[in-house]
């Protein structure tokens, strides 16, 4: 996965999938598919906890359950823009972060998804365990190393 931070401080992630655009778009918008991949490793995203109203103003909600201790995290977002099968924009109700997903048809090469996240400040305030200074520097080095 390639990534970059734009000069406006937005975050950009890009990945190419070997599948037609319509199918990739469906995977990102249909609960039956989202349940298979939405949660990060170590979590499950049960089908009955997913709500996707694919229209501007519609709800986008997922419950991610931690496999280890059963604790759950609910993502609540609202769609701002829906252009099937090209573009999805939603704003996280908790953090205020706006995520724009762009689906680009690459023909035989598949489909490229670009995730652009803007307005990140609020999310960033989520209290994290303050790692030691040395640790943060290591991580900063890793972060620098992953940039193009």
């Amino acid at each position, binding site marked *: 996965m390639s990534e970059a931070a734009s000069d406006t401080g937005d975050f950009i992630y890009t990945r190419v999938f070997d*599948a037609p655009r319509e*199918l990739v778009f469906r995977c990102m918008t249909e609960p039956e598919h989202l349940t298979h*991949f939405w949660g990060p490793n170590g979590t499950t995203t049960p*089908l009955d906890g997913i709500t996707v109203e694919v229209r501007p103003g519609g709800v986008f909600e997922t419950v991610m359950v931690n496999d280890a201790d059963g604790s759950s995290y609910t993502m609540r977002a609202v769609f701002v823009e829906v252009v099937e099968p090209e573009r999805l924009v939603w704003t996280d109700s908790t953090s205020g972060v706006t995520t724009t997903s762009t689906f680009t048809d690459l023909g035989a090469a598949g489909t490229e998804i670009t995730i652009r996240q803007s307005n*990140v*400040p609020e999310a*960033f*305030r989520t209290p994290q365990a303050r790692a030691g200074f040395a640790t943060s520097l290591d991580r900063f080095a890793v972060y620098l190393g992953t940039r193009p």
Partner: protein
Amino acid sequence: MTMLEDRLGATFIALADPTRRAIVARLAAGDATVNELAAPFDMTLPGISKHLKVLERCGLITRTRHAQFRPCHLEADVLDSAIDWMQQNRRIWSERFDKLDSRLRELQRPTNDVSQKPARQRKSHE
């Protein structure tokens, strides 16, 4: 937006520039004066000062008011929270995309063409 949110957002903008990242990396090794920071770069002092102002505005660095050379100091916790967010966010999207990739392969496998089915059968008896 509150001043704090403004500042945190500005941190990402500040770190998007390679010169400023290099300055941050240098300050991680210890406080330094503007002259010391300018040395490795082919840049004028006003040029470096401009970058320092951006870093100062978002709270990533502070400058001593009293000392004659006003050394720059890196604020570790500001950098820390920025890195926390970036790392966590990158990990989530990376893992999500890995799984989506597997899902798409599964859907397109000729012997198991789930993509043609309207939706997965639910276990209800309505």
